């Protein structure tokens, strides 16, 4: 699919540099053995370019980049299927650690938000160095910090290609309080990250399906010549373009307001639309690919499966829908709508 940045100010050189880098790097990060682990060489290579702390402020050791660069990086990484916890580290782990005044050194950091009862799913939990576990309670949350190696991890039941692992928050741990606003921001950051990644992954699913349909011949014609196939591809591409437009708008607002909470309506729209696109787009792509798409040998699952994983994290589509619906209930549709189309902070 044509890459549209929907009016975002994105440096084309940065964008093409990332595409070259990730095209080369991504296959090295794919390991089909269990446990997969984190490819430290690949991590170092990305780290040396300042990409693992892309949005972390310079005074915290990061590159101090803004949301449009974040969009370019994670969309590109997901388009190429790079399996590295760059977003978890930069946008969630280091952000929270810096907020709490914890120094992380060269550790790779991830974050998990516990459910009641203490079970917690952590993306890349078993593979990173440091894990921050967040326990939300009535007014705010408590965060504890752990060496990943000190926790017991289970990877049962996770999706193919997924690196999420499940643990329990240890009963005895030093806990720091974080304010409700910060908990809300953490969720928004995660939702926006996942939305961007979903767009990148779905774009690749559509590309793989279109490329396949152009060369695979049945009944003497390429699949692309069959109207039923055209219909599936057109719908998949349209849903992907729709999600991309929604996510780009949220990025634009996040950048304009310099405060993610002021952009929360647009982040809700972005996570809703990207999450709801995952089912129809991956269904169509897998259908067009036929049996080959169900194999380990073919790459399609490296894009379709992560998209499903991201769909369920930091609020499902339905969760964000319910928040938007509650706003409509409270203030009426015009007020919510005006906030969206006016592009003004909430």
């Amino acid at each position, binding site marked *: *699919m*044509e890459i*549209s940045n*929907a*009016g975002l100010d994105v440096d084309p050189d940065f964008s093409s540099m990332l595409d070259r880098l990730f095209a080369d790097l991504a296959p090295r990060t794919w390991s089909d053995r269990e446990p997969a682990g984190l490819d430290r060489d690949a991590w170092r290579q990305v780290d040396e370019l300042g990409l693992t702390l892309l949005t972390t402020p310079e005074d915290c050791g990061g590159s101090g980049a803004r949301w449009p660069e974040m969009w370019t990086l994670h969309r590109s990484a997901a388009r190429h299927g790079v399996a590295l916890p760059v977003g978890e580290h930069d946008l969630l782990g280091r952000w929270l650690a810096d907020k709490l005044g914890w120094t992380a050194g060269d550790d790779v950091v991830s974050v998990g938000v516990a459910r009641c009862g203490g079970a917690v799913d952590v993306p890349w939990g078993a593979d990173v160095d440091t894990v921050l576990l967040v326990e939300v309670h009535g007014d705010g949350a408590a965060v504890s910090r752990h060496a990943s190696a000190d926790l017991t991890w289970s990877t049962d039941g996770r999706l193919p290609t997924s690196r999420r692992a499940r643990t329990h928050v240890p009963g005895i741990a030093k806990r720091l309080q974080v304010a409700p606003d910060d908990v809300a921001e953490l969720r928004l950051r995660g939702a926006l990250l996942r939305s961007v990644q979903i767009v990148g992954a779905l774009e690749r699913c*559509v590309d793989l399906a*279109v490329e396949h*349909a*152009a060369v695979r011949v049945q009944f003497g014609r390429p699949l*692309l010549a069959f*109207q039923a*196939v*055209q*219909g599936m*591809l*057109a*719908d998949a*591409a*349209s*849903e992907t*373009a*729709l*999600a991309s*437009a*929604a996510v*780009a*708008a949220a990025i*634009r607002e996040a950048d*304009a307001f310099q405060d993610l909470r002021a952009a929360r309506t*647009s982040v*809700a*729209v972005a996570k*809703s*639309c990207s999450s*709801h696109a995952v089912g129809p787009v991956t269904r169509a792509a897998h259908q067009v690919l036929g049996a080959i798409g169900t194999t380990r040998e073919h790459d399609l699952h490296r894009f379709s499966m992560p998209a499903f994983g991201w769909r369920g994290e930091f609020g499902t*589509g*339905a*969760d*964000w*829908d*319910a*928040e*938007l*619906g*509650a*706003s*409509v*209930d409270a203030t*009426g*549709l*015009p007020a*919510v*709508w*005006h906030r*969206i*189309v*006016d*592009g*003004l902070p909430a």
Partner: protein
Amino acid sequence: MTPSSFAPLRAEVRAFLEEQRAAGTFVPAVDSWLAGWDEEFSRTLGERGWLGMTIPTEHGGHGRTYLERFVVTEELLCAGAPVAAHWIADRQIAPSLLRFGTPAQREEFLPAIARGTSYWAIGMSEPDSGSDLASVRTRATRIDGGWRLSGTKVWTSGAHRAHAFFVLARSASLDPAHRHEGLTQFLVRLDAPGVQVNPIHSFDGSHHFNEVVLDGVEVSDADVLGEVGQGWRQVTSELKFERSGPERFLSTFAGLAGLTANGLPVRASAAGVGRHAARLAALHHLSYDVATRLQANQPAELLAAMVKGIGTRSEGDIAEDLAEWAVDELDAEVDRLATDGLSRRAGFTLRGGTNEVLRGIVAKGLGA
């Protein structure tokens, strides 16, 4: 231009609409861009400078951008305001006249379109030519100083009230190897001798479209739009304006707003309402993206076809949910919004090119 730079213009339009609504000038309706015919309202919009916005000032317009027009039309649609009288003229006749019209045609029509006093229809479809538009059979025969038109147009929205319409006709005999050649567009006045407009009633009793019989209607050479034989190219260039606008997803917005005005209906879940709101928001962004491309003269056909395909389906999905949520609602106005939405729903995914045909256009754009 960021979206927020249009907030003052939006606020101005909203304040005006609020005032008009309070004064009882209009009652919010679904599908008001096709069915809400109110010439006085159109004239008022013209006085405000909200019609013919993209027409240059030397042609009687306002020399504003597509994005400004986008913003104003979006506000009008969201309010469910009666904009049908001028809609086609403002949306697609004016851009076509600017691109293909003669100086005399521009002078005659553009200032009146901007004033909200010149109303138009589109004569593309025929009884035997729907999706396959190139198969139109209306004949244009050369006569001294002009053309004689014979044939039947159908589904012509607003023809019973409009002043004129663009007729796509075959001006040279069909060459099966080059079906898109030999077509020409004509400006035809609907009160011309030989034009007969017969109503076609929709199943909900409304009358918005018509059959228009052209029985040897004579037009002069001055009434040819653009070039003889270039009708197909001209018509397809019109379509990107016709397809991508906010009317392709906002036809039922007034219904969704009406049904949720006093909190969510008891039958609706917050997630169900929120999902529609999120999707409409995304469609807004995508359609705005198309308007940005139109403004910058960048290719927009593929995205325009996408907006129309998914937008019309979404506005129809809203209509379905509204009808379900309205069960047990006792407010007659709310009932009317829901039933009108459902009655009009079938047309959403047909008018302007059916969704199946659009999918083909999108797939070709992807594969090319």
